[in-house]
């Protein structure tokens, strides 16, 4: 057989071999603290969204942190925009690169960002916030508690044992349905107000709200 015909079959055979080989190589699944040892390699990483913004050119910068140790964080650079919110637990696949002396993970495709858990799927009692505020600061949270001292556009949310309380401020356009003494679930962003040196829950986004708990 002439070489020019043979080379077609050789090429197809070699491509098939490459395909089989590709089935055995996957990116490493690493923890946030190990990023620096995987320079220029594809990795899979998980964390909670603590910050995100879109640049003027349509790329997105997401900071993810370890849910148990927020000082462990990594910046993700996404070519495009992924539908994420503060507090979501996400998984990203991308290449580790150094940019201005900081490690970041470049994700070429927003589809490589998988939301493992939406922030509002995880409901927890207020005391969890009180005991580990650093783990939730600036993220969206979904907490339960009892409404006390309602006034205008804010109220105090107290834990069932009355030991902890936090101010909830809400925008009237967000869904809210409660009266004093109700047990409610609140979807809000957990913030720190430096002016008053206090933590607060801010109900301002379309996905936020206050609902009466059933039962």
């Amino acid at each position: 057989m002439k070489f020019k015909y043979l080379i077609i079959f050789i090429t197809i055979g070699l491509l098939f071999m490459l395909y089989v080989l590709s089935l055995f190589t996957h990116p490493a699944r690493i923890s946030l603290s190990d990023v620096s040892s995987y320079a220029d390699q594809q990795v899979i990483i998980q964390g909670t969204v603590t910050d995100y913004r879109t640049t003027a050119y349509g790329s997105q910068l997401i900071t993810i942190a370890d849910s148990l140790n927020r000082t462990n964080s990594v910046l993700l650079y996404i070519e495009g925009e992924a539908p994420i919110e503060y507090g979501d637990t996400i998984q990203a696949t991308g290449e580790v690169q150094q940019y201005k002396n900081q490690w970041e993970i470049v994700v070429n495709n927003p589809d490589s960002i998988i939301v493992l858990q939406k922030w509002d799927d995880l409901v927890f009692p207020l005391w969890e916030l009180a005991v580990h505020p650093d783990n939730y600061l600036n993220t969206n949270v979904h907490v339960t508690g009892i409404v006390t001292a309602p006034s205008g556009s804010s109220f105090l949310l107290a834990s069932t044992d009355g030991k902890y309380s936090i101010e909830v401020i809400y925008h009237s356009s967000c869904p809210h349905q409660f009266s004093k003494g109700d047990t409610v679930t609140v979807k809000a962003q957990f913030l720190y107000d430096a002016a008053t040196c206090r933590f607060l829950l801010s109900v301002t986004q379309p996905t936020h709200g206050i609902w009466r708990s059933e039962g």
Partner: protein
Amino acid sequence: MLDFLLIIIFCVLGVLLGIITGLLPGLHVNNVALIMLSLSSSIVGMFHPLLDYGISEQFILIIIAGFMISVSISHSFHDTIPTTFLGAPEEDTALSVLPAHALLLKGEGYKAVALASLGSYGAILVCLAFLYPLRFIIGPPLLLYTTIREIMIWILLTVTILMIATEKARIIDLGTNGRLPALLGILFAAFVFLLSGVFGLLVFHFHIQSPIGVPAPVLFPALAGLFGFPTLLNSLFTKPEIPEQKVTPLRQNRIEQKSTYFSILTGSLAGILVSIIPGLTTATGTVLAMNARQKSSQEQTIVTLSSVNTAAAFSVTVMLFVILRARSGVTLAVREIIVIEPWDSVVQPLGLTYLLMFLLLSGALSYFLTLYLGKLFAKKFNKLPYQTLVVITLLFVLILVILFTGILGMVILLVATSIGFLPICWGVRRSHCMGVLLIPIILYFL
């Protein structure tokens, strides 16, 4: 004064390094950038003593970035020398001969180098002339880049269809009647494009590691295999007879000159396009630029190709400041070293002004040095053992692939070489192998 002196020194150093990397066959400028990127922190450390002379750290970082840009510009000029003098096939048996090789086989290798450096230098001047118009068209207020982003998928598809549909090869294996040979040529071009695309989709999932711990770019063995290796192997097997080379200064009549200007202009515009649109490479850019004109000679193809190459190297630096995208290895390295101030007002950022000085100076230096070295090469070429030179080049690329990408890189090189032989054996354009980048990017935008 010291500032200006430092710019000149660093530019000359960059050009000299660019000569070395450009003359080494098979070493792509992006790989050079990757090596520099991994060394960038030690390079910055090395020049720290300059701080004692009252030079700001920011300026030191800018001249290091400028040094890298000078390397890339010098590389884009000088790599025409090995691509002209190495890898030519035997003329009678070859279906597709690269234009520079065609001239080499006529004893006009130096002419090919001279035309290429003319194209490269012309491209720098055209890009400079287009600097401000581009800034306002691509960036605010016209924001063409935003529109381009929205219709990127259509642009990429159009480019692909243009590339394949304008294939001129005729395949006569199934008959010579009517339109069948031309149709088969186009179908085979589509086949090569598709195979390269599948190859691209597969290799981008590989996670290769360098045995010596340097960054391992998966594209290095892929591109060396698709474009470099098959050409060199083909040359080795067909044993071309290279005639004695003529070394006469480039002379063009008025019609040729006009044609050259046009090639430089279309080549530069295609190069600028390459720097804006992801997935377009200089090979694709050249096909587009060549399609923009109805008839063309080998000479004009060489001018166009080198214009596209250098215009892309120039324009990626400017685009780094306009659309804040790093579209080449060198700009990735530059972005790593200096803080990029977006060019959003009328006056260009100071950083860009310095880098433009490097671009212009290194372009002018490289032009004359390429002519000088090309002449030297053409004169001494006949005394060199051609086949040995090709074997050494092949071994050199092979060693680089092993050092950078290990065993897996060798496998990638093997598959890529096999794909790269298809266009050579069937006479279709080699640029169809660029499906390796285009198909993954088209799928990304879908």
